[in-house]
């Protein structure tokens, strides 16, 4: 990792991205900019789909952190994508309360429908499917988180079909 990052150039960030960063930094004491690192990395992920070494370096420079300290954050928290993922990342909860209400079945149903094993990405690059731990929406099982920010509740097979077909159609129309 360290030899890789040595050669990496920081990602150039747009004014809009920097403005979003600034809003986060403003929440913390002036000498504690590092507190905004999780939010900045989440913004990067929303805009670029994943957290690349170049992005980590840009965040490190912006917050005045050592690049390795940023990398530690990226690797510690489950939701950061350390590699590019499909256009839609689907996280299905399979923890016990969800498992009792078909959470694991929903994951299997999606795996069969998309033709990809959990952890994988479809050949067209549209969907990444992952099993996940408790999403904090247990009473809504089966539940699935789409692209880190959208919780989808009560995902019966019919609703999974509707959602996947809808996402495919939106991608085809160029609305994604």
């Amino acid at each position, binding site marked *: 990792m360290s030899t890789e990052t040595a050669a990496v150039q920081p990602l150039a960030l747009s004014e809009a991205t920097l403005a979003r960063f600034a809003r986060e930094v403003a*929440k*913390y*004491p002036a000498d*504690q900019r*590092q*507190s*905004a*690192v*999780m*939010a900045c*990395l*989440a913004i990067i992920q929303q805009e670029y789909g994943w957290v690349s070494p170049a992005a980590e370096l840009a965040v490190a420079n912006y*917050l005045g*952190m050592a690049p390795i*300290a940023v990398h*530690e*954050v990226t690797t*510690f*928290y*489950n*939701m*950061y994508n350390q590699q590019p993922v499909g256009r839609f990342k689907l996280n299905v909860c*399979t*923890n*016990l*309360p*969800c*498992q*009792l*209400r078909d959470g694991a079945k929903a994951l299997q149903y999606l795996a069969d429908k998309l033709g990809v094993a959990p952890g994988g990405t479809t050949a067209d690059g549209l969907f990444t499917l992952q099993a996940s*731990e*408790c*999403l*904090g*929406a*247990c*009473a*809504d*099982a089966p539940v699935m*988180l*789409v692209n*880190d*920010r*959208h*919780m*989808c*509740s*009560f*995902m019966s097979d019919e*609703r999974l079909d509707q*959602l996947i077909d*809808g*996402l495919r159609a*939106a991608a085809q129309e160029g*609305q*994604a």
Partner: protein
Amino acid sequence: MNVNQLLQQFQATGVQTCFHGRHIAPQIYAGLDGTNWRLKDYEARGGYQALRKILGQDGGEGMTPDQVIAEVKTSALRGRGGAGFPTGLKWSFMPRQFPGQKYLVCNSDEGEPGTCKDRDILMYNPHIVIEGMAIAAYAMGVSVGYNYIHGEIFQVYERFEEALQEARAAGYLGENILGSGFSFQLYAHHGFGAYICGEETALLESLEGKKGQPRFKPPFPASYGLYGKPTTINNTETFAAVPWIIRHGGQAYLEMGKPNNGGTKIFSVSGDVERPGNYEIPLGTPFAKLLELAGGVRGGQRLKAVIPGGSSAPVLPADIMMDLTMDYDSIAKAGSMLGSGAVIVMDETRCMVKALQRLSYFYMHESCGQCTPCREGTGWLWRVVDRIERGLGRAEDLALLDNVAENIMGRTICALGDAAAMPVRGMIKHFRHEFEYHVEHKTCMVPAYV
């Protein structure tokens, strides 16, 4: 249709989980319908009156910080995050005359499997948490606070940010609140997927922009907290209980529940019931009543077992459970804990080995790796339970599980180690025959398991 519109159609509405009209004497969830979360609606329900009261608005005398803390002590409010520590007592630990900055933190990192109550509070009644935090800040002389929100519930984070804007604009947050001279700034912070960050010192590390690895306690956050400064951390539901206590008095709150267990509590009921969801009921309500509110066991099956306080709590068999009331003391006496209030219900078709296999995997996955007994022990627990479940168990495995669990308990930095070990011991204690059957017959006692 664009992607956002499409995804919105799959978003929960709260009808099933929170607006089902099956609470008993609710205080936090009272009168919610999903659309009435805004400031003006909250005020119409009597919101921010408690804050106005302590600040001596509307012609009142106001309350001193000591009076506020005394009222919370009288109420017997106990921490809703799981440990049940008396809230008033915790508030009184904050140093009064500290020269530097002090902090107030709300723990909304709700990640204990089975728990989803804080999500519904923040989504459908965010101002009750803001008001509760402002009152707490006044009582402890704190001027800055953060609400750390579970990363997976991003819509809730956005909702809370919006509510904060409203409260600032109305003068309930910020400099010189309602002209009283008291100032309190409150900000939202989100996690990004790490169960361990719900542990209070891991949460503080995470707020500081680091890996969420727990710190040794003591020192407790009251003396060494965020950025090394005195800090009080409470759960979302704990703060949400405070406005009612101030408006109606600690004694009235105490009388809602039972001695030493004041007020109402929200239980997240999941698993094999007809209507999973959050139920707000007075502490001391019989479990049988809660089960009835949730529509009873699904499909007319018989109840087998219940995990009464989130996945970290030891399981209890049906016959013990049906005799219990839902409060801290009664569940502790039965050998489990009320914990976060997540009630995971399992019917007679469920295999306890398989249930434990899934939970053990979770704790192994979420161990932060700092302490050897937890890092190695959670791996051992999972591997042994997994091989028993897959029909590869050995005769000595039950003793081994007990031994590994015993060697984790009390030997780690934070309670995650205990949380992994206690369910194992609980399962083996109450359902030993099922584990033995698995080992002996290489298969499940309840083949109908789905």
